[in-house]
């Protein structure tokens, strides 16, 4: 990396970004902090309660379950999407018309509004009108995502894999395309096997994009709301109630503003912590270069 020039006037260039993001981030965040320490009955009647809501949130077993479900879910989809994405990227042609075509086709799910993704799977998974649901009943599986918790959970996972594997695949694809042809030529001359080419040439070049991919997928899956909301509404029971769902239920459904705000902050902090770990890793890796 080239050394950068020290120049504090650069702040003027960053100022617009700072202002616009601060408007959407800091003011609402302050509001959340404000709520989190008050008990609110109506806009004019509120009491300062200190850390009480935080204590309540930390001890709320429903939230613990939601958090556990959230981690389980995030790890499950990462464990499926990352290897699958790599495989798809390896299979995509790098040159010619096939490259553009496969790129566009693979990217399609990413451009569908999230609630439509939910709608698509809501239809697709129904045994009466959906192909997938009908197929499952056809092969003798008693499948109903609306009434069976396991089926619901698996459907949400399947939907996420369908929806987001393309992101991992495209990331990896761009990483693979950045490998100079000469590396493959050298490997052929060294009589490397397909596996050796993957292990020693492709995978090392993929680490950077994979970190970005894992970061994005972890974060986005951690805040997933719309798709399961449309598909299952968080049910049956609470089998697909992840953190965002619980939060929205609490804040808007029950209008428990104080606890919801405290919950928001805890939720945000968890994400921030994980994000920071990733960020430092990426920065350190770039320094190594």
């Amino acid at each position, binding site marked *: 990396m080239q050394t950068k020039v020290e120049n504090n006037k650069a702040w003027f260039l960053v100022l617009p970004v700072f202002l616009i993001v601060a408007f959407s981030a800091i003011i609402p965040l302050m509001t959340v902090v404000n709520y989190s320490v008050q008990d609110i009955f109506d806009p004019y009647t509120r009491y300062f309660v200190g850390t009480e809501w935080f204590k309540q949130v930390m001890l709320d077993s429903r939230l613990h379950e939601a958090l556990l479900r959230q981690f389980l879910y995030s790890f499950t989809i990462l464990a499926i999407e990352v290897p699958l994405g790599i495989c798809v990227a390896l299979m995509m042609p790098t040159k010619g018309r096939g490259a553009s075509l496969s790129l566009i086709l693979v990217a399609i799910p990413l451009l569908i509004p999230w609630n439509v993704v939910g709608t698509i799977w809501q239809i697709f998974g129904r045994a009466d009108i959906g192909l997938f649901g009908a197929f499952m009943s056809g092969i003798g599986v008693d499948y109903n995502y609306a009434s069976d918790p396991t089926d619901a959970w698996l459907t949400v996972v399947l939907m996420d894999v369908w929806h987001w594997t393309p992101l991992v695949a495209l990331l990896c694809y761009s990483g693979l395309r950045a490998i100079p042809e*000469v*590396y493959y*030529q*050298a490997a052929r*001359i060294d*009589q*490397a*096997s397909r596996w*050796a080419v993957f292990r020693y*040439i492709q995978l090392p070049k993929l680490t950077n994009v994979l970190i970005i991919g894992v970061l994005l997928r972890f974060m986005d899956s951690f805040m997933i709301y719309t798709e399961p909301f449309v598909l299952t509404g968080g049910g049956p029971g609470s089998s697909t109630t992840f953190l965002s769902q619980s939060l929205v239920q609490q804040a808007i459904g029950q209008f428990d503003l104080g606890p919801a705000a405290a919950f928001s902050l805890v939720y945000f902090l968890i994400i921030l912590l994980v994000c920071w770990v990733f960020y430092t890793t990426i920065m350190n890796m770039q320094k190594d270069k």
Partner: protein
Amino acid sequence: MASITLNALAHTYTDNPTKPEDYAIREMTHVWEQGGAFALLGPSGCGKSTLLNIISGLLEPSDGEVLFDGKRVNELKPEERNIAQVFQFPVVYDTMTVFDNLAFPLRNIGVPEYKVKSKVYEVAEILELSDQLTRKAKGLSADQKQKVSMGRGLVRDDVSAILFDEPLTVIDPQLKWKLRRKLKQIHEQFNITMVYVTHDQLEASTFADKIAVMYNGQIVQFGTPRELFENPAHTFVGYFIGSPGMNFFDAELKSQGDQKAALMFGDHEISVSDAMLTRLHAMGADKVTMGIRPEFVHVWDGKNNDAFPVDVDYVEDLGTYKILSFLFNGQVMKARLSEDQKVPSGQIYVSFPEQWTKVYVDDYLIDIADQAAVNDTVEETDHAN
């Protein structure tokens, strides 16, 4: 170890080639003998890298065949040809140590680990990489990486030839000569056929016993550095080799009276042998290109019978020698003056010794000493050397 034969080889990147320009490699037949150190010299875009990739099997030629020790290898993939190739930019496997990098080709073919070890140590010793073996290849400097690339070619016992594709491009100048000497040393030690692609004549002539000069997809001359210098078979060789390159000028074959023909550059007669004149006459070539190296131009202080009066343009002092530019018949030409020679000015006299004055028809040398080649030329109106 093997000799490499290219038989009627041609390659094109277009689907329906119609004219010779569509070919990156125009049809050629060529032999690289076993154990030689060869250079493939030419400007960028002349097809030398294409040719190299065809030999190693990374590219399949559109026509003709590649033979290793007389056996056709067209259908063999690079991994089956037992060829090593070193590329312009060093290719190392970043995540492996230097040792693992060097061991990689051996492990791929299932060589037992104890043999791998001894072979890697041996090669590392030669390349002076012994103290780097445990380091990750990622952190190496460019020249060390390039040494690792070479080392991967050297560890295999079965390698028939090592191909180098401008391997010193990214190496610092002061390290270049060191690596080049290393290569030379390796060649002497291993007796492997080596083909070295470059666009640098100095690199080519210090590395190779014989140089093939490539131009527009053809090998226009294959010879020792000295042959290329003294007897360029093609105007391109004259122009590309030597600094500055050969002086060229167009002359006309004019018959004065009955038998007495002469090569005329404007009003000046350029003397060539009678045999040459007869040859040109027989070929019916009345327009020719003549060439003489600046090193062979004679500069006289005073008037002389064989010398032509010319005007001095300017003199460049290059330290150990000087380059004199002069105007002859309105055309700029150059002559090399040794350091102690007097710097002339104004009008001077130059002469072109007959022995060093070359005659070219359609860019190819008319060489009356080589009768076989002459016959070829007559039949095909194109020249072979």
